[in-house]
């Protein structure tokens, strides 16, 4: 599975949806993922890829990690995975 498919699978599981229902343009809000669900998704993604995502729930927009939609999250993960030694 590609990084993109793996991220979508995690987000879909959190949203209790089929992966096919999660599109790159979907926002977490549209998928029904609240702040707790977001923190859980980030944890699951970190575990899946063995990376650390710089995310503070108090200032989601202040971190470098863009969560505005699924595509942005995938791009961020791809970057973090590629930076991993």
């Amino acid at each position: 599975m590609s990084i993109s498919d793996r991220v979508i699978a995690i987000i879909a599981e959190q949203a209790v949806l089929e992966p096919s229902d999660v599109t790159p343009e979907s926002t977490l809000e549209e998928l029904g993922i609240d702040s707790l669900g977001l923190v859980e998704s980030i944890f699951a993604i970190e575990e899946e890829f063995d990376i650390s995502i710089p995310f503070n729930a108090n200032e989601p927009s202040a971190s470098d990690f863009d969560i505005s939609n699924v595509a942005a999250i995938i791009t961020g993960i791809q970057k973090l995975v590629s930076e991993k030694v």
Partner: protein
Amino acid sequence: MKRVVITGAGTINSLGHSVPDTLEAMREGRCGISALEFRDVERLAIQIGGQVRGFEAEGRFNRQQMTLYDRFTQFTLTAAKEAIDQSGIEFHGDLAARSGVVLGTAGGGVSTWDDNYRSVYEDGKNRVHPFVVPKLMNNAAASHVSMEHNLKGPSFTVSTACASSNHAMALAFQMVRSGAAPAMLTGGSESMLCFGGVKAWEGLRVMSKDACRPFSANRNGMVQGEGAGVFVFEEYEHARARGADILCEVVGFAMSSDASDIVMPSKQGAARAMSGALADAGLSADSVGYINAHGTGTAANDKTECAAVAGVFGPHADELMISSTKSMHGHLIGGTGAVELLACIMALRDGVIAPTIGYEEPDPECALDVVPNEAREAKVDVALSNAFAFGGLNAVIALKRI
């Protein structure tokens, strides 16, 4: 109903090892938050906290006691001794038989759990010290206070996360007010600043890596602290009869449950606790001069709390002062309400309002007088102390100058 007064106070926290030291630090707006020091701290993403420094437990307690006292118990006993010494109360006979200890803690002996899990899981040992259970149990501190000071009445521990101390003090207040007990030792303590304790909090991603800045637009989360606060709550006539120095009166309290979300706070739940405390005390909203805020420095709490204050107090919300001393001592979780009650006592007794330090940018969603950065002199007749816990459990206490 009996009147209830506070005749003794004790504390240890990152600002000081006593009430005078802590109040001096609050007056000066000192920050007790700094780099954490303990084993494996380098494996944490969050490496700051309000840690108690220079506390030599080994000098205060003997070897036998040390095998039974987790750090949260050590803090409690230290604070309880200061409170009882100040109060001058001595528990003998009927007074001893009817007086008890109600304390709050969220985690109890967290570092005892942590040390012993490390020992069996990481170090592969198959044996732990025989007193691990009595050392880590949440009621250990309350029990040791009862033993040390001969309190034989109702004693127990309350655990409601960040509101534990306020719930505990509210219950102690109820017992003295109802006449069930002539005096109660009450407050709370917490000591979670160890690898497992901070690691667990990190997971929620609500912790700041640099500072606790309640109400400031650039706030980025909470910072943990540790320590204890313990008070002597005493029936007014009993205190007067023995010529005790009365610090202030406890006049009301209220508890409420949000019944909505396990971590997100609710404006309505917070508001109901504040207005309930005023109603219980028979006070009007405009009599309140100071509120010690829950003020955790998270995005969610501070704006919800300010909205709740605005809702309860209406136009008077702009007249009163509200500060969060967590900016200085950090969030003591189950012990936090007890240490924060000291700021209310200082406001009532000394006319000094503890500041919210680290305040850098106004936030339109927190547009109240948060006493930014510097303490202020003001005459205050009534103060509230707020505590709003995870799980949506709220407890607010009302104090009055005497």
